[in-house]
């Protein structure tokens, strides 16, 4: 009872609560760059928001690099599909840019326009076609990314938003796992050798 009234009191001080809730609940990421006002509000009242969202059963995560989202350990199949496709999208984009020698950490400054997407598509045609994605599919995927708060459309091109770091982190993790696996296998080999000795 007292908890409820407490929440009500807190909620009354959070004019953007409903907005933010809808925002996050759609699986959307909030980026400081693109939504400075909402971000400021969230940041200022972070404890309250976390408390309310936690009470509602959501796990609000806030990354210091300037984005926040509702964390889900196991998303719906639909989200999974979207997530998978977005992972592919970002991977091919990052891959293309890496091949072009462009520093990846500055991804927020890239202009992802039709030209770049065409290049991306051309360079990863096989991979994308295997996923039944054509160039227009890539474009609509960018729109999906926009819907999830990974990108924004501005001045005729998309701009990746810091939330993409989630994918980047994931790639890095995977890469380090691969490295570790390699290390382990290498170590294992060594062990084997030791054993053999």
């Amino acid at each position: 009872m007292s908890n409820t009234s407490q929440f009500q009191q807190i909620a009354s001080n959070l004019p953007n609560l409903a907005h933010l809730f809808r925002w996050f609940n759609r699986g959307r990421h909030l980026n400081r760059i693109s939504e400075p006002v909402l971000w400021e509000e969230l940041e200022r009242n972070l404890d309250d928001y976390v408390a309310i969202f936690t009470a509602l059963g959501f796990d609000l995560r806030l990354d210091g690099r300037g984005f926040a989202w509702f964390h889900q350990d196991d998303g719906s199949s639909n989200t999974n599909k979207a997530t998978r496709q977005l992972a592919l999208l970002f991977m091919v984009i990052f891959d293309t840019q890496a091949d072009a020698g462009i520093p990846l950490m500055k991804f927020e400054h890239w202009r992802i326009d039709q030209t770049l997407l065409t290049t991306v598509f051309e360079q990863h045609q096989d991979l994308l076609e295997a996923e039944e994605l054509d160039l227009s599919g890539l474009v609509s995927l960018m729109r999906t990314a926009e819907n999830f708060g990974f990108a924004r459309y501005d001045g005729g091109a998309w701009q990746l938003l810091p939330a993409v770091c989630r994918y980047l982190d994931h790639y890095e993790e995977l890469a380090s796992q691969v490295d570790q696996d390699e290390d382990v296998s290498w170590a294992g080999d060594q062990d084997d050798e030791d054993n053999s000795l």
Partner: protein
Amino acid sequence: MSSDYGFQQLVLLNSAGYERAELPLDESVSLIAPNNTGKTSLINALQYLLIIDKRHLDFGAHDKDKARRFYFPSNSSYILLEVTLPESGSVVLGCVGKGFSHDYAYFAYRGPLKIEEYRLDNGKLVTQPQLLEQLAQHGRTANFYSSTEFAEMVYGGARKQGQTSSEFTVFRLENRKDANAYRQVLTRTLRLDKLSSGEVKRHLLQIFSRQLPDSVVDFKQEWDKAFAEVNQDREQYRSARNQQTLIDELERQQEERLAIRGRIIARRPLIDDGLERWQNHYQTESKNLQHQHDKLQEQEADLLERDREQTRRQSELNQQLEALNKDEHRRRELENRLALINERSQLEQQLASTITERNRHIALLDNACGQPAPAIEHQLRRENQELSNLRKEQETLSDNLYLTLKQQISAEQLSILNRGLNRQLLTLPPGDYQLESQQLLQWLQDMPEDWFELPGLNLSVANQAPQYEQRSEKEVAQLIEDCRGRLRQLQEQKAATEQLDTQKKRTEELEQEVKSLEKDLEQFDELAQLQKSCPDRLKAMEAAKQELAEIEHAQKQAGALQQAFREQIQEVANQRQALDAEHQEIDGIRQNRGDTDDQFNWLADLPHTPWVGDPVLPLDQLAKTLRDYQRDCYQLKELDRELHHQRITLHSGGLTKFQYAPSPEEEIRLMVEFRHHLVREAEALEKKARSAVVTVTASLRDLRGNLQSFENAMHEFNRLISRRKLSDLKVFRIQPVHENHLVEAIDLLIQTAEKVESGESFELFNQSSVLDDRQLDYARQLLIDEGSARHGLKVADLFRLTFELAKENQDVESFDDIDSAASNGTVLMAKLVTGLAMLHLMQDKRRSVQALCYLDEALALDAANQRSLIKTASEFGFALMFASPSPLITAHYCVPIQQMSNGKNHISRKHWQILQPLETVEA
């Protein structure tokens, strides 16, 4: 290392479930009690004295009202703190309950703190209303203070009148502004386990804020301010550039207007003067021309009259000459005709004979003309009959029937027979006769008197003349002669009648001949006459001819003269007409002058191009000049209108820069000038834009500088907290991490500004204008958005703090949240160190007053860490109080909390245990 000054002891009387609690604060303390015995309550009591501001009191799960009831159950509930201060020695800061309302009051006095002084003679605690009196009895001058006054006192705020400065100031801060932060950190030091990363950041910022002056930048405002003019200028530049042709046209028209004005100004007096002179001129000239005209016409009329006279004379002479010629001709003709006649008598004789002949013929013709020829013929035949009858009668005169009958028959009978034989008898009407053929013979016998009775026919001869009368010879001969005479006459008449036409012709011929002769006679006379006048005539003819020739010559001359006159008249007429037309025109213009508008009166005051035409106006030029002038006037008005419209068009096209020029003229001048200097304007605009970038980045530079200062301060801070080893941590530091997008945006703008200042890349006419740089615009927008979301950009918005930790032999790890960084104990330590360091930073280093720092759940730390912490705290000017269920041997004091039989807690000085190294004790 304990300070000489600082907190000495905390005493709770009848508060927070303690009947009495005395807690030493001058050295590290190990507060020992089982869980939930009121250790934290004890420490929290300090909040009332040190935090003071009700808003900042924090009792964890308990709300403030509850806490108030808990701490001040009665008006004899006390929280007392004894502090030794460098200025005033021992002072007591106290808070006493006001009773039923559970409210409380602050008081203070110069110590030392003696609990006995609060006890009345009856052994009870003094109540709040008697407190001051009670203390006074013990020689303590205590005062009550409002919470604000108390707070200001404790933190060395504004001094009250008559109060010695900083008498009770416990915390001397380097900066007054830190008081709030200090109190908040202090609150946390009382509950350090709750110190969060956000708070650390906030407090650090607050602490360093004095090094970051004026740290809020409203970027949008700065930008707008810096670029307002540039943007305006740019708009003006663009609109001018877009409307260049229009402005050129404006310029052309304006020049034209100026020229026209100049002309009008110069001509107006000339024209006024000219018009005045004109009337006179016109009248004089007009009269003059009229006079000329009249004179010429007169002359022409004279000429005409003369000419007419001559013509008349000419025809006269011609007639005369003709008559003379005719006479002459006649003379010659007559001379030819009458060449054979020498004398007049010859002709007279001929005439007389001819007249006689003619007269005879006329008489003949007169008789012949009595009867016509057929009648004469008839009469002639009758006369011939008569004559034959008479001749028969003459032959039978002696022996004829009648004579016989006369002898035989009676005279009556003869008469009857004679009458009966009348040739007229047969023409008798039917009444006059009766015819009976058998009786005709009888008749002859039986014939009645006066009847001619023929057998079957009885004729009355009563009325008949006797057919036959017996004449004498003589008578008959006479009758025959008469008849013959008449016959001859008739014969002649008949012949005459038969020759009448010939006769008539002949008569006419004769008549003609008479006339001809008479004429000849006349002509002869005439000839004589003519011959006689011939010499005179020839002379006259000669004279006439001469005169005619003269006239002809004169006429020829007159024609030329007349032509000349006519031309002259025409010319004068033309002149007059021209003059009239000119006058009419001038008059018309004068009546309807185009320069009647007001503006023409002060035209000279308006800008104009001086006219360098002829300053004199000849009258013959007046009309033309007036016409030109009039046209100029209209054109000027037209130009005024057009220029006005042009200006409005330019305004609506955005060129409003000069709208507030003192006059439209000036505005036009400025517009034109502006248009001519567009290239320079573009340069100026670029320069302005650059300087705007520089201006706007000045504040960003400050911000960036502040960030740098903050980082430097953080560096210092990290050194402070790293001085002692924390737990097993090799590295512990709080690192500001840039909010890259913002810092990069700021850096970009600053770099741009530097380039602009050094003129490195933004050369004149460089395409990449400052104004159109996309990245720059993006950076600007970003800063504006962030700024407006945060009501201005602060240094705090430019970074976040991360906690970097590393154990021995491990890489440094960063954590956004300090709680998740390491084990509980380590985190506790980290927080404690951080908090103490912050407090230390805020305190006035020259005046160390040792305060208290509380650490709950202290058993989480091992002894080494405890010692380390105690030392650290001491270095920062704090005595550390560990709370734990069991004693910690690292502390100076061990203070157990005892539970009384009445359920209240009790801490007595008597139970304090002082732990000292054996060596010291032994020594």
